[in-house]
């Protein structure tokens, strides 16, 4: 078949050619910038894995499920970015908390998810990747059978733990949300927009973000007197993931705003002026002039 013929011609069978770093270093020597982006990512990867004794990669399975769904939404079967889309970012990164979150023991005894201190390591975000939106992604496990869509009132408090940092003077370091969550059998993720909180930190290329989050679902809408909804809180998978929707301005990245409909502007990196610029599919907020 064409594949085997091609393979013999381009890669050959000798063991040396099997090792990726040999292949890449023989192509570019000490000029990694000559590498196309995908090979550059893989070459770094191959080098780092050899240093760590080829530890196999284990991303969080729930997070992986979400990102595969996102991939199917944004790309065709052949992997080509769909053109009929309304978002303007060409990069989405999902981070899970660095270490096992520290939970408030008092809340644990009461069966509440309680508040947790989370640290996200953002080393993989490059200088050319500008933040457009950041989201905390919560998910619910299958312990509660949602026969139909249910709406439940919840409270979320997110506090950035380095409030002494200068960024806090210009933007909020704590956000309170009162939400009515719509949960369906197939849709067990909840996305909370925290761009206003994290935008200034990530815009200054901070390498890690520390935050305390407290997410509690209540029995009824009267938030002052309502009691926690214990089954739902138990179904809530404790530590959220952090999603960053970014615009990579390097020339290897695909910039789809050439195909923007007339009147739409190219994305402006997060700089505080454009609050609530929503680029998530389904939330069409026209950017203010």
């Amino acid at each position, binding site marked *: 078949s064409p594949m085997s013929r091609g393979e013999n011609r381009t890669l050959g069978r000798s063991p040396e050619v099997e090792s990726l770093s040999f292949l890449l270093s023989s192509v570019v020597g000490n000029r990694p910038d000559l590498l196309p982006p995908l090979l550059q990512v893989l070459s770094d*990867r191959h080098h780092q894995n050899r240093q760590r004794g080829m530890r196999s990669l*284990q991303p969080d399975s729930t997070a992986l499920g979400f990102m*595969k769904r996102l991939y199917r939404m944004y790309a065709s079967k052949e992997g080509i970015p769909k053109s009929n889309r309304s978002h303007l970012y060409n990069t989405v990164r999902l981070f899970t908390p660095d270490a096992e979150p520290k939970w408030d023991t008092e809340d644990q005894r009461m069966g509440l998810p309680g508040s947790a201190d989370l640290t996200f390591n953002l080393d993989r975000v490059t200088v050319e990747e500008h933040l457009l939106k950041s989201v905390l992604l919560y998910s619910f496990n299958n312990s509660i059978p949602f026969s139909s869509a249910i709406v439940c009132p919840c409270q979320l408090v997110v506090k950035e733990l380095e409030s002494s940092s200068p960024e806090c003077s210009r933007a909020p370091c704590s956000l309170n949300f009162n939400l009515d969550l719509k949960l369906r059998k197939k849709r067990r993720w909840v996305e909370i927009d925290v761009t206003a909180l994290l935008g200034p930190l990530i815009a200054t290329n901070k390498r890690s973000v520390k935050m305390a989050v407290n997410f509690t679902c209540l029995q009824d809408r009267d938030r002052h007197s309502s009691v926690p909804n214990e089954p739902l809180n138990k179904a809530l998978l404790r530590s959220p993931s952090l999603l960053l929707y970014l615009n990579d301005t390097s020339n290897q990245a695909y910039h789809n705003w050439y195909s923007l409909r007339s009147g739409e502007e190219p994305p402006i990196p997060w700089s505080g002026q454009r609050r609530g610029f929503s680029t998530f599919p389904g939330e069409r907020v026209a950017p203010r002039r």
Partner: protein
Amino acid sequence: GREAQRPKNPASYNLSEYLKQFLFPENECELHDFRLSFSQLHWDNWIIAPQRYNPRYCQGDCPRAVGHRYGSPVHAMVQNIIYEKLDSSIPRPSCVPAQYSPLSVLTIEPDDSIAYKEYEDMIATKCTCR
């Protein structure tokens, strides 16, 4: 010597055969598929999607009169003339990609984070002679 000086009389040729070499070369410059799977390259434990990738490639002969059929620049015709008339060590125009489409890739990063990226110029979609 006399044989070479006598002007070649097109009438002695079959005209359609003569013209065919300009219009439809046998091994014409065109796009070919090359479906590879990342598992062949042992990259499938960090590339989650796509699992198969067809970058395609261009291969074939560039005819003497490249013209509009291949979207070639005028320079390609000039280079053909130089090769034929002045210096045959100068290479003829090559069959190369002229247009590409991007590719979306889902990868696991070294720190176990997950990245969705869109890269430019990853799949050849059109060939040209230049």
